[in-house]
């Protein structure tokens, strides 16, 4: 497997009102083509910052990030699409118009981009909602629109920053299953940020556990088992306990810190 994303010893500090905060320190990570790589760790451990660096929205203070062999300096919508926790849909646009936003920015002709968006409605489970506005959709539907907007520009890499974080648990489980189906069909490279052990274990080919602030990589868990995974199997239950052990320590440290 070739490394599509290479993160090399990056660091990042922010200025906050209570002084400088070190979000990331000396983080290195390589993600191969077709991987589903999940970042998990306590709140404030720099997961989103790391994702922002790969997406070109955050510049590292130290180290470098490369996608497809090129250093990342700005968002590159031909290679990387991003889904945020807050779907960030444009309320004045319908589902179709939101999905085709990225293509519109790229100057794709109106009929072409409308056709791409319309073809996505089926897989998104939004066939009857193409002309609805975000306020008329449920939280899960809105997040699917945001995912559709990312899929429409058909990049090899999709970054997802806690996409299901704001959803209720049942919706969240269903969305995870749905996303797994999409990913297995499209074989995109996904970097996924979550707080959910279940999501990490059910979806990922690899889970990267990050430490409390300043965020560093604590451990990496390879998950070569086939999909769909039976989460109640003894193997998955044991992995869950192991992962929780690692995340729990860091979460406790993060809580003590705060």
């Amino acid at each position, binding site marked *: 497997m070739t490394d599509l994303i290479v993160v090399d010893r990056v660091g990042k500090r922010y200025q906050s009102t209570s002084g400088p905060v070190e979000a990331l320190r000396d983080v290195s990570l390589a993600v191969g083509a077709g991987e589903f790589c999940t970042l998990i760790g306590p709140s404030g451990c720099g997961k989103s910052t790391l994702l922002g660096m790969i*997406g*070109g*929205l955050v510049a590292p203070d130290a180290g470098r990030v490369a996608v497809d062999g090129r250093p990342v300096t700005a*968002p*590159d*919508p*031909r290679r990387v*699409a*991003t889904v*945020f926790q*807050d779907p*960030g849909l*444009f*309320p*004045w646009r319908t589902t179709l118009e939101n999905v085709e*936003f*990225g293509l*519109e*920015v*790229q100057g794709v002709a109106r009929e072409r981009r409308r056709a791409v968006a319309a073809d996505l409605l089926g897989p998104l489970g939004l066939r009857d909602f193409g002309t609805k506005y975000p*306020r008329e959709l449920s939280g899960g539907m809105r997040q699917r629109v945001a995912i559709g*907007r990312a899929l429409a*520009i058909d990049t090899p890499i999709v970054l997802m920053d806690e996409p299901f974080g704001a959803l209720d648990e049942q919706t969240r489980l269903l969305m995870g299953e749905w996303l797994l189906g999409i990913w297995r069909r499209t074989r995109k490279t996904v970097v996924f940020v979550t707080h959910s052990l279940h999501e990490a274990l059910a979806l990922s080919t690899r889970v990267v556990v990050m430490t409390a602030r300043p965020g560093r990589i604590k451990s990496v868990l390879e998950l070569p088992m086939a999909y769909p995974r039976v989460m109640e199997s003894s193997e998955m239950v044991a992995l869950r306990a192991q992962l929780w052990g690692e995340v729990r320590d860091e979460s406790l440290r993060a809580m003590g810190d705060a």
Partner: protein
Amino acid sequence: MTVRVLVWRAALLALALAGWEVWARAMNPLLYVPPSAVAPALGRLLALESYPELPASLLLTLREIAVAYAMAIAAGLGCGFALGLNRVVGRAYGPVVGALYAVPAVVWYPSLMLFFGLGAASKIAFGFLLGFFPITLAVLAGIRQVNPHMIAVARAFGARPPVVFVKVMLPAMMFTLVGGLRTGLALTVIGVIVGEVLGSREGMGTLINHAYGLFRTADYVALVLVTLVLVVGSDAVAGLVERRAQRWTE
């Protein structure tokens, strides 16, 4: 609107007119002008008997409003975006705009007459002055309202600043902006007409002053009614535009 609401409104109007009629006759019909005197005066006015120069005056006032409003839009949008999109300029001059807006604008009018004379220019200047501030402030408020996350999303999808401006900022602030444009229009109309009433040789304000000065109170009320239609009409059009923007944004 339901029929019931219309009936209630008509009833209130009829009651007010009847009350006014009785009261005016009991007091002094010359000063308090009962509706029965206004109706024929309005007829004579619209038949161009009492003031044959009505169409020309109306046209002049409308032209002054149009010019003043166009200038207020151009300057208001220009200043608003210059102050709102540039942090340094905004910090330096933003508070000045707010402070100037708080000054009762009518204190500027004498100097505008001195600068621009009795003609249309001083009315346009005053209408502009009144319309300019709400538009500028609406742009500033609108820019503050734009959700920074949406701008980040647009950037992530490769939108450059001009594209972000057109596809995210403008639609996101449209509702506030249109509200400001509506307020600006109402104030521009007020500015022009007040300017004419305070001192002019032509326009609706001059006719109103003339009728009032000669105690032709029925004519005076008829002229005010015509002016009222002009103001309410312009505001209704602006309100229609505002509702469209609202439907589009929310």
